[in-house]
């Protein structure tokens, strides 16, 4: 590996090259004092450079690491265990959960896009509530961060969805424990509201600032299990003359969000708008922000109208098969298109899946 690719300041790099240190291996066995003398810099600076170089060493390192052949790598087997122990956030719609393999997965970035009025914000609000469902009901007992760039977060609606969720939990309780005295669900809608951290963003600078700040925020507020950005597009859509800059900024944002998802094991949900694209001789709908952005997210779900119903289609996912499922937006939030009796079945299913998993992990 070359010294020119190290993330150090330009003047240090120039000094290294003019002193003859072109590859990183040439820095591997040198002392800071020696380097400082050679380059004419302070010993502290030399130590800094050597530290950066050793982090980038890669497979040329001669020091054997303890666990794995390449430091920092994880075996696929370990990752499989991790994935299975990761809970998923239910969407409250059984059909949608089915095609998603149980719900929105934590540790990944999921992009959800659709035409105006299809229910993106509704799904965002539903997930912000569902992440808070207590563990005994199959939820994650986590908190949510809601980053609102368009002002579509209506508090009254969040209250409605929270109240409906509590009713569902009570029904599930009475259904499952019909022989036992009814256990009161000790939650109020306001408790759900208190666990949603709301940021209102008014420009793309603020959007970048909040995503940079999230790392510190989430380490200070434990239990945050989902970050919802509604929508990622709005401020990047107009008054951007420099498209190359836009692509770079979006790429940077996507990387930071992926890092957040992985580091804190949370789900990142990005809501996107639609635009038109000319392909195959006609105009088609496609998600906004361009082709380079479409590579940035791990999973992509498109919400669309088909006939008289709303459907969700999994457009891109490394592990889930491409499929579509119908859903409905009701007074209680996102629900199945079918009748009411499925509602309780859905929560039961989540509970059984969790129990099944517990049994499996004990084997």
């Amino acid at each position, binding site marked *: 590996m070359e010294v020119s690719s190290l*993330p*150090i*300041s*330009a003047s*240090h790099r120039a000094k290294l090259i003019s002193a003859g240190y072109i590859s990183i291996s040439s820095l591997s066995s040198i002392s800071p004092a020696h380097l400082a003398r050679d380059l004419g810099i302070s010993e502290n600076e030399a130590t*800094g450079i050597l530290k*950066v170089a050793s982090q980038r060493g890669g497979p040329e390192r001669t020091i054997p690491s303890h666990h794995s052949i390449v430091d920092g790598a994880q075996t696929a087997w370990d990752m499989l265990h991790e994935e299975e122990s990761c809970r998923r956030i239910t969407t409250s719609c059984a059909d949608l959960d089915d095609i998603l393999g149980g719900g929105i997965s934590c540790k990944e970035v999921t992009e959800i896009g659709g*035409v*105006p*009025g299809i229910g993106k*914000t*509704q799904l965002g609000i539903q997930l912000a509530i569902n992440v808070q469902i207590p563990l005994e009901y199959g939820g994650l007992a986590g908190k949510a961060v809601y980053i609102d760039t*368009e*002002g*579509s*977060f*209506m*508090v*009254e*609606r969040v*209250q*409605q969805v929270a109240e409906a969720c509590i009713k569902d939990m009570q029904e599930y309780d009475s259904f499952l424990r019909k022989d036992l005295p009814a256990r009161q669900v000790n939650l109020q809608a306001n408790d759900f*509201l*208190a666990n*949603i*951290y*709301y940021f*209102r*963003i*008014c*420009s*793309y*600078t*603020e959007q*970048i*600032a*909040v995503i940079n*700040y999230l790392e*510190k925020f989430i380490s200070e507020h434990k239990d945050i299990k989902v970050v919802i950005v509604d929508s990622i*597009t*709005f401020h990047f*859509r*107009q*008054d951007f003359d420099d498209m190359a800059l836009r692509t770079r*900024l979006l790429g*940077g944002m996507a990387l930071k969000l992926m890092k957040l998802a992985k580091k804190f094991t949370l789900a990142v949900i990005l809501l996107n*708008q639609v635009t*038109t694209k*000319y*392909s195959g001789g*006609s*105009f*088609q*709908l496609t998600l906004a922000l361009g082709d380079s952005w479409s590579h940035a997210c791990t999973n992509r779900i498109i919400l*669309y109208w088909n*006939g*008289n119903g709303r459907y969700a*289609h999994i457009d891109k996912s490394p592990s889930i098969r*491409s499929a579509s499922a119908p859903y409905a937006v*009701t007074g209680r939030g996102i629900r199945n298109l079918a009748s009411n009796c499925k509602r309780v079945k859905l929560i039961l299913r989540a509970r059984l899946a969790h129990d099944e998993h517990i049994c499996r992990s004990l084997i």
Partner: protein
Amino acid sequence: MANKLISEMGLPKSIANIFAARNIHTAKDALSLTEFELTELLDVGLAEVTTAVSSISEISCPPYQTALSLLEQRMHNEYLAGHLPTRLKGLDAALCGGIPFGVITELVGPAGIGKTQFCLKLSLLASLPSSHGGLDGHVIYVDTESKFSSRRMIEIGVNSFPEIFQIEGMAQQMAGRILVLQPTTPTEFSECLQKIKDSLLQHHMKLLVIDSMAALVSGDGQGQCRQHPLGWHMTFIKSLAEFSRIPVVVTNQVRSHSGDDPFHYSFQDSRQNLDFPTTFDSHLVAALGIPWAHAVSIRLVLESKSGQRFIKLAKSSMSPPVAFTFAISASGISLLHDDGIEMTGPEINGICGQGNSGLFD
């Protein structure tokens, strides 16, 4: 927030000086460059740049609130937790109280359906004293098509609120609170918006009505045009609504649906897809395009079908898709039934343009 000066952020002197030397003065300048670019530009190590960027981000990030404190704040500070009641019972119930503050509400429909009538009534409602359910404030009415009729507005007032308007001088006071601006060119319109922003900060403006948005904008940004011609206005009006927490009502025109309008995605098999635009015997869509449709928070579609006029709640994050029948009378718009008809499917977004039988039924 974006224009916060780096010099005032309290960063360590050395790094602050380097930023200034490279002409990076505001948070916006700093955050528009990736960290790698900054190490190149400023000639400092990556670790230092990362620390500086995270401090800048933390300082320029707007403060957070829990959803609960948001709700409590609104219930405490604002009239009806942030809603302007329209006096149309069914509509107000569906909208959780009325036209919401802080977001754009759009009225779209074919010509002559009653959009301006609705706007006149809303202006009146906002100017009423709070004892009668009004916002007790001034209204700015931007009239781009010269449709504002003060005579009609007084007529609506006299017929809807006779007890107020019969008092000596009340009509003058109410009408005196409504300020009408009539720009005739897109440039004047932009200037109007700037003036509105300035006066919002000083006076008790409680409602902004723009009738109509489409009149002064050429084209609607479909397909080829990457930068929406309305882009600046959209974000400006949205932020105006947001920081002043007032309701903003905008009317929009319709245009005929051309064969180029896209309705499906690449993964949808166009054979299976029902050609639904033609099944609602209409060929009208809202003007101003998809980006505008994303920017508004509430969309009310007014249309007329088989002799009946409907007002439909096509896009609203807090209401189910319902339609109400309405009629226009001497006292403005009134609903014929307060129970809405729930509509399923994308039909709620369609605009039917069958002929209207005159303005007054």
